């Protein structure tokens, strides 16, 4: 009974079906390599350092893109959120730019930045700026006015109101924005690395495609998924610490 209800059963069954299909030739190798080949390729790529090296390059691009994009997003949101003048100056251009799909900018970025690291990092940075900006800006503007009244009645200066009321109040929204930003960063990375890369996960996939090595492609896909999970876990950990005051987390 508990076996039949376990959430692991059907994925493992699918994996077994895939393996049987591949070994018996029902699933041709050029369509999809078998699970055991994927696993052994994964082990090889890890031990030869090929995967680690390329993963590190991709990771570096994400980190650089995120660092720039998140910083810009936070800075713009603070300017627009904390003053009417800032809102007038910043919000409308950002709202206009945000309607551009960031991936559609890649031709322009190649013209501007060439085909090295810069356009890849710039694409990620551009993409992640908006979810961070929109969520933080909304969070700042959505801070409970009654709490601000209370803070003013306690004699808090504007600076103290920002530090103790506005920013902590907007933090949950910022974390939502960061979560979007991280998943978007992986998405943009996949496409950005198709631009003439000579290293990185995207490069591995491209090369594998040229040689029809489906097992390498599957390994890379699994690594992408792993990156997504890792980032999600990261944000959850940060949330758990930063939002410990929320009752549902307190009760844990």
């Amino acid at each position: 009974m508990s076996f039949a209800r376990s959430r692991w059963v059907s994925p493992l069954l699918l994996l077994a079906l895939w393996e049987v299909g591949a070994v018996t030739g029902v699933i041709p190798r050029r369509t999809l390599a078998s699970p055991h080949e994927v696993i052994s390729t994964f082990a090889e790529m890890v031990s030869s350092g090929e995967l680690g090296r390329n993963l590190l390059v991709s990771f570096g691009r994400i980190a650089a893109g995120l660092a720039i994009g998140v910083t810009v997003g936070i800075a713009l949101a603070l300017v627009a959120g904390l003053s009417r003048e800032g809102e007038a100056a910043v919000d409308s251009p950002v709202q206009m730019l945000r309607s551009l799909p960031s991936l559609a900018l890649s031709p322009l970025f190649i013209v501007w930045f060439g085909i090295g690291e810069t356009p890849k990092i710039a694409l990620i940075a551009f993409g992640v700026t908006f979810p961070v900006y929109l969520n933080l800006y909304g969070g700042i503007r959505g801070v409970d006015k009654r709490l601000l009244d209370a803070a003013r009645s306690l004699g808090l200066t504007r600076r103290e109101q920002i530090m103790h009321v506005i920013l902590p109040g907007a933090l949950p929204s910022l974390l939502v924005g960061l979560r979007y930003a991280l998943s978007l960063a992986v998405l943009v990375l996949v496409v950005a690395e198709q631009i003439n890369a000579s290293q990185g996960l995207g490069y591995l996939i491209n090369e594998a495609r040229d040689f029809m090595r489906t097992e390498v492609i599957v390994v890379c896909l699994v690594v992408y998924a792993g990156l997504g999970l890792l980032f999600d876990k990261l944000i959850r950990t940060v949330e758990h610490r930063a939002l410990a005051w929320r009752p549902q987390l307190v009760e844990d």
Partner: protein
Amino acid sequence: MSIWLHDFTRRFGDNTVISRLNLDIAPGEFVALVGRSGCGKTTLLRALAGLDDVGDQDVKVPSARAVVFQDARLLPWKRVWQNVTLGLRGSNPRRRAEAALREVELGHRLEAWPLTLSGGEAQRAALARALVREPELLLLDEPFAALDALTRIKMHELVVQLWRAHKPAVVLVTHDVSEAVALADRILLMERGQIAVEERVDSARRSDLAYQQALRETLLSHLGVERESAPRVTQPDPTLHLSPQVST
């Protein structure tokens, strides 16, 4: 130091919410402000609290003032004691906050997150946050309205006890006439932005049920609540909230 507003007027656009209102409050006096919604009592309280800019009108309010709102308005991301120290100047804020919280019997909840407090506890924390500033003017904006009847009675006793200990002038805004009669020295009834009725409460006769009843009826009739039916002292009136003196 006394508190006053002379000829105080407050407009929002074409809407005059308070017109030429005069109010003097002696140091340590407990004043209740009753009135129907929309009569301007909240606007008056905000002016006294310094939350709205009153311009250069003839208003004298001590800068040492504090507000307790209907909803406790604790910052959910700060622990209870940190909420009390918020904006607190001077030395050793934490120790003072802890003393204030013990005074409202919250000594065991110093490190709690506000969202884990009950309504009564949150309101007591808000009281501690107000009193730790040693205000000369304590503004209470319907602070008991969201509490259940039993908690409300306990809060009434606590407020009176704290008021006796610290002697701030108190302005209690309430829609509950019984509460006003039970707590205040003076009851002001506001109507259309002015003080329409002023009643002094004789504290020596406060525990006299008939006196209370008469006072309540005077105020209620001014508020337009006239009820012909039945005795009211022995039978709790469903529209009135329980207060310590009428807990029959």
